């Protein structure tokens, strides 16, 4: 009895989870494997389109003979690079139609015109004409003829499915793509964006954890940048920072803080002198990181606030009795209590910032030294139309992420052991 129950339970479980598992498999797991496959191939954007045999049907009435009609098919291979094999053609006509002359490749049976055109090389074009006549002498309605579309079929190689593999993409990614610069930019963007958002998250969480008037309102406001659409925010920032008519530059000039406008999103380097040391700051990258921090610190804020509210009040009361200063309370009680959350946040934000595409794309499009790995995937795959290269870059992302996760969990595992 119990056995059958657990059996049905198992079956039900499979039925219930199957749709979700299939969908996730098809849209998330399958593409990851497909990506490995594509990254070893030389594929361009134009190769993706499957070559199609096409026919444009033109109906011409023969002057003086209403019972006759000429039909011209403009045949072509839609692909400029691939041949189509065994092209077959089919078109339907009214029952009273007959034809005298017919191309040797075709036959006309039961009001259906069938042709076998053989192989069409790339860019193939042919004009193919048939003359029809009604066998009962009735007039022909050419509009009706036009509305019937011919059917064409053919076989072609799918570049994606053949087994020609190459290492060319990876060689290009690693040696011809300013790879070191790409890695460094991605690393700066990810690391400083993550650290910055966590620092701001701690500050704001500490702030909202105190009692003041309008606290719930403040909590909602702090989450605005996180819930609003990227597109709107990125364009607003672009407007704010615009060098010619942006609000920020106008304000700075108005208050005589700077003399010439600063192109915060379009200038790669700015030279800064601190204590006699000259160094170059990557300006556009810094601005993009600022935007990233601004947009994602609310997540850190939310996590840390939830943790702060769970810290027992007794700890602080005991510290008060011992005469601890606010700084001591923060560093000795609060900080140790939130390190676990911070380390999880660090991982989540690091991974997501590493893959962040939209923000940089919308703000700078990857120009002026803000080209990160995800931007490069887009540039290679869609701007240069080299799908294979794009896939290879995204494979690099996957490998780096796996390495990061491996080290992170190793490190974390060690620390847990020590405690």
């Amino acid at each position, binding site marked *: 009895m119990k056995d059958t129950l657990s059996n049905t339970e198992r079956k039900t479980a499979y039925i219930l*989870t199957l749709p979700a598992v299939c969908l996730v498999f098809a849209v998330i797991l*399958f593409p990851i494997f497909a990506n490995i496959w594509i990254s070893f191939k030389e594929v361009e954007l134009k190769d993706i389109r499957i070559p199609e045999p096409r026919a444009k049907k033109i109906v011409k009435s023969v002057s003086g003979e209403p019972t006759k009609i000429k039909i011209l098919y403009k045949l072509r291979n839609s692909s400029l690079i691939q041949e189509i094999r065994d092209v077959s053609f089919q078109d339907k006509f009214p029952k009273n139609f007959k034809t005298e002359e017919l191309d040797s490749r075709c036959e006309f049976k039961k009001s259906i015109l069938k042709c076998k055109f053989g192989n069409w090389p790339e860019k193939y074009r042919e004009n193919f004409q048939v003359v029809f006549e009604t066998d009962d002498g009735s007039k022909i309605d050419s509009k009706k003829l036009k509305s019937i579309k011919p059917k064409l079929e053919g076989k072609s190689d799918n570049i994606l499915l053949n087994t020609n593999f190459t290492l060319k993409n990876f060689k290009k990614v690693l040696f011809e793509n300013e790879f070191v610069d790409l890695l460094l930019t991605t690393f700066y963007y990810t690391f400083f964006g993550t650290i910055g958002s966590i620092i701001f998250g701690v500050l704001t969480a500490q*702030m909202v954890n105190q009692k003041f008037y309008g606290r719930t309102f403040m909590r909602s406001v702090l989450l605005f940048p996180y819930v609003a659409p*990227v597109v*709107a925010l990125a364009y607003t920032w672009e407007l704010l920072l615009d060098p010619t008519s942006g609000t920020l530059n106008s*304000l700075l000039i*108005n208050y005589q803080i700077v003399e010439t406008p600063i192109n915060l999103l379009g200038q790669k380097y700015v030279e800064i002198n601190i204590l006699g040391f000259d160094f170059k700051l990557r300006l556009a990258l810094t601005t993009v990181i600022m935007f990233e921090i601004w947009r994602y610190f609310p997540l850190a804020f939310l996590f840390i606030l939830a943790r702060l509210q769970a810290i027992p009040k007794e700890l602080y009361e005991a510290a008060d009795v011992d005469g601890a200063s606010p700084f001591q309370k923060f560093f000795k009680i609060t900080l140790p209590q939130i390190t676990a959350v911070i380390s999880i946040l660090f991982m989540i934000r690091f991974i997501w910032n590493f893959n962040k595409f939209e923000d940089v794309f919308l703000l700078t499009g990857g120009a002026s030294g803000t080209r990160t790995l995800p931007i490069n995937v887009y540039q290679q795959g869609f701007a240069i139309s080299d799908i294979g290269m794009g896939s290879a870059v995204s494979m690099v992302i996957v490998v780096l992420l796996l390495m990061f996760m491996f080290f992170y969990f190793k490190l974390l595992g060690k620390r847990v052991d020590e405690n």
Partner: protein
Amino acid sequence: MRTKNTIIFSLISTFFLIFLISIWKILATLQGLNIQNFNLQIIFILGFLISLAHLTISDKIRNFYKSILFSLIFVICDGYLIQQLPIWYNIGVFLILYFFVNQIKKYNFDNLKEEHSTQVIFFDFLTLFGILFFSFVILFPFYMMLVTSFKTQMALLVNPLDFSINFGQDMKDLFKSYFVIFKSYKFGKYILTSTIVSLGTVIITLLFAIPAAYAIARLNFFGRTFLSTSILIIYMFPAIVLVIPLYTVFSQLGLRNSIEGLLIVYTATTLPVAIYMLQGYFKSIPKELEEAAILDKLSWFGIIFKIIIPLSIPAISSVALYVFMIAWNEFLFSLMFLDNPNSFTLSRAIQYLSGDAETPRQYLMAGSVVVTLPVLFIFVYFEKYLVSGLTAGSVKG
């Protein structure tokens, strides 16, 4: 010790005052006032003197009169420095000073003597400063977005700092950008597409996620632990890696530029987090209810529909809202899969609009307001549900 603490207190409070006055000046400048100097030194001296005077006078005058007195002195000095300013500016300065004096009223020579008093002061003002700073930094771009959408190209070129809105003008002129984007740029259609895609994603995701989450939460089957752990790993997987393979497959299947294509991708990407959030909630429902239902010979589907769903309406609505927001805000896939303006979503349409350098910025901002408002409205209205969802799932991105 007392002098040192007094000076530290005065300095910190003065910096806070400078910050308040500077923000007010920036906001006033953006209303078209001609202020070109923060007058930092003079405000510093005034603020420092007010803090010191406050400490010395302490309780000798009633606080109310003291606040009024200080504020008036400050307003007169400030008004003398920047002349010909409208009365509302001076009223603003007066209110800021009134607020400031009230903030410092709890400090006097006695509590400055206490242990850690400087640190307490520092933390108190840091909190105040933080509240104002973060409100300003966060709300300012949203404010800019809104006011720019009501301006005209001409007005913005003449004085890029004048963001005052003339409410006296005709409604048609005021909302001109909105009329234009709806008439010439077909924003009505994009809103419809975005709504269909987002609602569709919510419905399909829930249809798939509720049964799966129930199975993972309650039923014993081979691969259950594997499924529940792999959900989170899949959730962390980067969307940018999926883009190229999905693009190639969708091109060959003819799914690009179609709502169906977007629905498939959005549902698949939101499913892991939806299942994760729901199964957590389902586990908290007492098992006894289901055991009773099994005795009543209710099938598994009956249990889900008659017991689980009615009991987890809060969790389901939180997942629904949250999935809606992800789908509404989504940009990467809509950029990759849509290139025909007839099938654009709102985000994609705004990006397309900005691609044309000729597009006036107020249209762009009007579009941004249109795409942002629904999300902010949902967020503020359903905040309670969403915040729990956000912490559980932490919106992807």
